[in-house]
């Protein structure tokens, strides 16, 4: 290389490396880049990130809405630049104008989308006036600590007015210092990383064992080993908790689906094949309540899951009572016929719902209390929709138990279950008890539909998914006992979750079924057989 070229090269490298610092932001060409092809959009996103780190306050305020606009496809590109559609202003000058004809909304590729998300968070952290928005932006950055642009956290912490948030930013900055040149900073970073154990953290920390400092520096080696041990312990605890939680949440679903069946089957020996469809109807009633609230009281819309509880119960209970009164009471002496009759009812209900609502999945709002989750420890995430189902199952269990154990109706139900003829002799109105019990069982199915609507898709076929599982629970638990239903649901749920990661979901289903069959060979009456004179 000729000697005069070297300084020139150095100058151009310097120019390349520092344009964001030195030069003012070229707004027109940035907008042109955002309207360009995939490569240009990527460069545009990088410019936005650079602006977030080193742009002036005015430039940052100008750039702040752009990344979000690209992500939301709110940027309409036309021949004279681009328009932010939502606010109706030109993207460069921010003066009101309409998008020209044939305006095109650029679509970020998946790779660019990640960069734009980062740019959006970086800009929000620097310039959002609202502290909640800045905290949310920091959360987004925490998801990908490796990609946080260099220098961003330092300048953000320097200008952050809120002390709590500033500390969080500092923590993240220290975590990012895992590969810095200062050994003390690295050791500090290690302990910060180990504070939130996850498999991702483990991968990152164990990669440090190949670092030259690991063999050279005893203190560093100790810190890495300690962090690894702590993260591994955290992951192990998280895995155990996750397995328990998954098992419990699956058990709560099984329990909700089975408890109504257990009461109906236990009391009358009627195998109600329409139970799944009653669950489906409960979900549709919930949907109707949501739609009703949307028109009548939009402010209460978020609470539709709670408001729908009595409605779902009463509607399905009424349908259950109608089925019992119209059909089943004629068939008590012929159990096979009642099986066929309830099957017919189930087909009828499916088709009725299909004709009225169509076959597509219903659109449910997800209120804040059933959406998302919080990471707890390791890879264990506490998801709110599952928690809702678990809580709902516990409440249902308590209420069902109270009704069966503490009310006159419950006393009558137990008496009729144990010996129908004797109960009739001492003056219990068995006809009415049958009807009420069927109503109770159906109403519980309706509640199951409500509890499951934030988890599963709601469509006319959804009931068929539950019927086999709920029969497994009822038969395993011992027909008609609440305790049996609880224990069987917990057992099946937990075993399923334990087997699934080992041999797969298909094998889990088969193995659980085989285990139930084997168990019933040994105890045909199920886990908790009702004591007393059964025919």
């Amino acid at each position, binding site marked *: 290389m000729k000697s005069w070229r070297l300084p020139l090269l150095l100058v151009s490298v310097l120019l390349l490396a520092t344009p964001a610092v030195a030069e003012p932001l070229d707004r027109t060409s940035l907008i042109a880049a955002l309207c360009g092809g995939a490569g240009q959009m990527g460069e545009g996103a990088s410019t936005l990130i650079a602006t977030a780190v080193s742009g002036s306050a005015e430039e940052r305020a100008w750039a702040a809405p752009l990344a979000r606009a690209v992500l939301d496809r709110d940027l309409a590109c036309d021949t004279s630049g681009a328009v932010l559609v939502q606010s109706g202003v030109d993207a460069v000058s921010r003066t009101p104008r309409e998008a020209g004809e044939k305006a095109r909304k650029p679509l970020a590729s998946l790779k660019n989308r990640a960069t734009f998300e980062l740019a959006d968070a970086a800009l929000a952290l620097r310039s959002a006036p609202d502290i909640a928005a800045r905290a949310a932006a920091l959360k987004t950055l925490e998801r990908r600590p490796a990609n946080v642009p260099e220098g961003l956290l330092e300048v953000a912490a320097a200008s952050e007015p809120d002390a709590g948030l500033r500390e969080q930013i500092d923590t993240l900055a220290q975590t990012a210092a895992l590969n810095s040149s200062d050994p003390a900073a690295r050791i500090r970073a290690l302990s910060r990383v180990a504070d939130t154990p996850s498999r*991702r953290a483990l991968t990152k920390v164990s990669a440090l064992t190949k670092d030259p400092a690991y063999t050279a520096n005893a203190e560093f080696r100790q810190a890495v080993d300690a962090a690894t041990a702590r993260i591994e312990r955290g992951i192990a605890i998280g895995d155990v908790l996750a397995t328990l939680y998954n098992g419990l949440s699956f058990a709560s*679903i099984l329990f909700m689906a089975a408890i109504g069946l257990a009461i109906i089957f236990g009391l009358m020996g009627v195998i109600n094949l329409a139970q799944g469809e009653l669950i489906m109807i409960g979900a549709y009633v919930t949907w109707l309540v949501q739609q009703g609230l949307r028109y009548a009281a939009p402010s209460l819309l978020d609470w539709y899951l709670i408001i729908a509880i009595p409605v779902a119960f009463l509607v399905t209970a009424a349908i259950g009572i109608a089925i019992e009164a119209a059909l089943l009471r004629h068939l008590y002496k012929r159990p096979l016929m009642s099986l066929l009759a309830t099957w017919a009812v189930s087909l009828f209900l499916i088709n009725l719902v299909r004709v009225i609502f169509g076959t597509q999945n219903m659109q449910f709002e997800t209120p804040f209390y059933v959406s998302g989750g919080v990471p707890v420890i390791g890879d264990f995430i506490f998801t709110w929709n599952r928690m809702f189902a678990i809580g709902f199952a516990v409440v249902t269990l308590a209420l069902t138990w109270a009704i069966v154990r503490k009310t006159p109706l419950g006393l009558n139900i137990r008496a009729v279950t144990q010996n129908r003829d004797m109960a009739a002799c001492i003056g219990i109105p068995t006809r009415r008890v049958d009807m009420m019990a069927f109503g109770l069982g159906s109403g519980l199915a309706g509640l199951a539909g409500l509890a499951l609507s934030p988890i599963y898709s709601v469509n006319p076929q959804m009931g068929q998914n539950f019927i086999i599982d709920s029969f497994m629970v009822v038969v395993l638990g011992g027909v008609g006992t609440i305790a049996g239903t609880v224990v069987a649901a917990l057992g099946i749920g937990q075993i399923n979750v334990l087997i699934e990661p080992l041999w797969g979901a298909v094998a889990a289903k088969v193995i659980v079924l085989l285990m139930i069959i084997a168990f019933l060979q040994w105890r045909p009456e199920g886990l908790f057989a009702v004591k007393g004179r059964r025919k």
Partner: protein
Amino acid sequence: MVQISRRSLLQASGLAAAGLASPAILRSAMAQSGPVKLGCLFSSSGTMANLEGRLNYVVKMAAEEINAKGGVNGRTIDVMVSDPASDWPLYAQTAKQMLQQEKVSALFGCWTSVSRKTVLPVVEQENGLLYYPLHFEGDENSKNVVYVNSPPASSVLPAVDYLMSDEGVSAKRFFMLGSDYVWPRTINKQLKGYWKSKGIPESAWKEEYVPFGFSNFQTLVNQIRAFADEGGGQPIVVLTVVGSSIPDFLREFANQGILATDIPVLGLDMVEADLEGLDTAKLVGHLNCWAYLQNAKGPANEKFLKNWADYVKTNNVPFSGTVSIDPMVSAYDAVHLWAMAAAKAGSFDVPEVSKAFGGLTFDCPSGYKISMTDENNYVARGVFIGSVNDSQGFDVLWQSDGTPKPVPFSPYG
């Protein structure tokens, strides 16, 4: 009150039955000159109802279009609809009935590969003609089946290639999750062969299957997160679960806080209709690949979408007039391709019609001119990669320059 004796009742009902049946008898007598019959094998009940059900109507719509122009070879088209109830053996039985009793000139049907596999021996034995509108695992070539959609080489592989490229997400690790039957297993086998040929180590992928209709994806999504956190490059999920499992999986995936920019999902059976009812704001960016997307540009698609919306309105069709999915368009293409072949052959006999396949082209709503060759019964289609948007649809992220030649048998299987 009029007294009705048993005998008079029997006589009357016998007469009535004869009266009701006579048009049918008459019709079969003049079958040679009456309308030509086409049969539909799409379920209106069971797990596939929401997806397959709408294809019945699109076939009818295409037939109406052709009838409005005077029909084929001077005869109008009459579409017979059945309901195999998502019950695989029933597809074969219904196909047999349609071919033997109704003498349909062609069948349009099946969604899952397992239903096509049950119908295959029937159409071969009866020498019928089945138009199959789904993209599928390939590795099959029957003279009695027209594969209207794409084999993996021209649908799945371009999409996986895109994700592995720098322009995509430079995917390095793959979690395959499928329903447990022939289509996912074959696709995954081919993908593994493909990755092996690219020098990707076996440790970079994982394979899991779930039963049909599976809905409890909690532990599987946990496994996907653990797989992703192991490091070693960008992970993606290749999703081949079908039917109601798709929205249930997506719901759990989003609920555990995973974004498309963390782990993108490539849903190979995911269509616009699967997103109905989902809060897609949290799913923006996930991908699918088909030979048609509702957001395809061009006048042909605008015309198709308008026709479909009008057809839904005037005929009270129980499906959304604003949603259009690839298999609908493929079924629509299929009817037109059949009508062209029959017109070219000047006959409705299957061997004659089959001979006329070579050189057929049709302006598909996707905007591509699709074509058939003499070589096999595959149709050359365009390829789209779609990206989920926040309004329960797919934006076109990438589309092929032309219509790649379909390769029925995969070298990677």
